[in-house]
């Protein structure tokens, strides 16, 4: 809580029950019936209103370049899903995922399917996968997406209660995705900036250490 405790006028305002406190996301988090799935990074969990990845929502991860470590963010999630035997679909990844590396990270490649499709058909496939409750996670590299398309995917994700993660280089200033993260690489690790998290106005940045190669 970063409220100036010294000011009595502010303190009196805090006693009004109808006042909505946008900053206090910890309080609103309890209002979410189900908490999210932990990201595997406690520092990042603390910044997010769901204490992790949201459920049935669309997440955008914006990077300046492929391969700077953005996959690190989802590896713990994939590991957890693999242990549950849940399936994930990867749409148009920049190159082929390497099965021995996934196995070494504790992810069974048998639970993972790669879908390659022409750009015109890709969003159709992503939407169908998000709508399907049998698919637990959709990772997609769709290239350029418009405002409307993101909104449609967000609706599909909530319909199928599937987590969808879009990786792109990000040109949109705002979108209807539940969570937007900007990831940059530093010499020590990853620098994750929460651009938008639904239900919280806080814009925080987290520095995460990368696993040593």
């Amino acid at each position: 809580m970063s409220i100036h405790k010294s000011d009595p006028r502010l303190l009196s305002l805090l006693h009004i029950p109808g006042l909505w406190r946008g900053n206090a996301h910890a309080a609103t988090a309890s209002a979410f019936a189900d908490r999210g799935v932990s990201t595997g990074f406690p520092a990042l969990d603390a910044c997010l209103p769901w204490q992790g990845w949201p459920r049935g929502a669309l997440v955008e991860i914006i990077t300046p370049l492929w391969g700077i470590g953005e996959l690190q963010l989802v590896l713990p999630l994939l590991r957890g899903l693999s242990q549950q035997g849940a399936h994930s679909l990867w749409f148009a990844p920049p190159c082929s995922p390497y099965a021995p590396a996934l196995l070494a990270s504790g992810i069974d490649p048998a639970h993972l399917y790669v879908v390659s499709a022409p750009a015109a058909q890709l969003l159709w496939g992503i939407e169908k996968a998000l709508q399907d409750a049998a698919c637990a996670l959709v990772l997609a590299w769709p290239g350029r997406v418009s405002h409307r398309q993101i909104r449609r995917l967000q609706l599909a994700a909530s319909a199928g209660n599937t987590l969808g993660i879009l990786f792109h280089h990000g040109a949109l200033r705002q979108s209807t995705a539940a969570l937007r993260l900007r990831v940059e690489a530093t010499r020590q690790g990853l620098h994750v900036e929460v651009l938008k998290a639904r239900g919280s106005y806080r814009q925080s940045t987290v520095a995460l250490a990368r696993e040593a190669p």
Partner: protein
Amino acid sequence: MTGRLHQLPLFGRPQRALRLTRTQTPQRTPDKTPRTGRLPPLWYAIALPQLLGIPDAQAREEKLALLAQRLGQLSGTVSVEAPDSLVFEARSSLRYFGGIHSLRVHCRQLLQPVLSEWGLPVDFHQAASPTPAASLLLARAGCNLLVHRRENLRSALGRLSVQSLTLPQRRRLQLHNSGLRLLRDVWRLPVHALGQRFGTQFLRQLDQCLGHVATPVRAYESPPRFDSSLEFDYAVEGCERLLPAIEELLERLCAFLQARDLSTLHLQLSLQHEAQAPTLIALDMRHPGQFRAPLQLLLETRLSTLTLPAPVCGMQLEAWRFKAASAAAQPLNGLSAGEGTAAPTESARIAPLLGLLQARLGDAAVHSLQSQADHCPELAASTTPGHEQGGSTPAAVLQARRPCWLLPAPVQLQQHAGQLLYRGPLQLLSGPERIETRWWTGQEVCRDYYVAMNPRGMRLWIFHEREGERRWFVHGIFD
């Protein structure tokens, strides 16, 4: 008088027998009564020793099955006798084909083109006799004989070696040591003693050859194939108007499948046009289908992306790869709450989605990943398009770190004044890990792998050739 009546051929002609009793004038039995029912069967065996040269047993069986399918034109009962022979019942076909010699010519005309197409010698051994076992024995021994009567079997078989029977090595040696070289020698011995000395298996084979004991023959059945077509009264334009016809064809297919308790993995729909080659739609399914609704959904999804080159005047639906329907059974979700059954349930749940994606995006669009136990980085992973996954080998878990992304082919690194460059100068973080393998293929892999980082934060898996031009390549990106 009654004793004479008993000798009369009663079958088919009871009136005559009655008449004979009345007139009391028995005559010699006429020869014109139908004889086919009384004649013993004639088994025609074909031995193809050239097939034994094929090392792969499965390929050999497939070839034999193909030949058996062709012989189906000659006889209703064809049996495949692994590894190199075929037997068919020839008696019932003799009259139609006009005698055994004409049948032999037909047989040769049927088999020789196939054999020459496979590049095999076109000659084969053949023998015919009243028992399938004797025919096989004669054909395999290379005696091209025709034995009409069962009484002659003993003398016909007498010239064969006892070693041509299928016996364990111990029995063969025992027969040899007893001085029994030919079956003729065996015929001279008393039967009881034979069984005691050489075992019942030996005796049963002899009995089967001579026709004392029936030989079970398993008739070859050609694999099922579904082929159904519809002709339209007028040419149809637009995919939506084809849907009722597709529904009709699928209805027929499902009736076919359910009657045989099968499910299908592959469908081919061809749309016929008036003056053009037909449009082919091949559908490979991840999950065997038996019911109309899911199959129709897949076909409709595929059709929705199709633009017809011309109006359609007819369509044909074919299916020839089947699976037993019980293999397609899905567990009841409520009952499979146990730990071990969770995974198959999950894969069964995802299958419809994957099938839908495949139907619209093409069969090669969906891949599953596999890991193989191989030191060569390129070969340690493979993607299989379409069908069921083969399963990974968990034994292949490596201690050394591998990149999550492997480039489709290594990209050569540029160097400037001794400094490696990939979107900026590279800094080595760890290494080297030496990989030396595949020297036996002539394309030897002999590399030192390092982990490097560029200024933009990409961690790369790079290698240095240890032989040849000693170039540097980037092979993967870590995460």
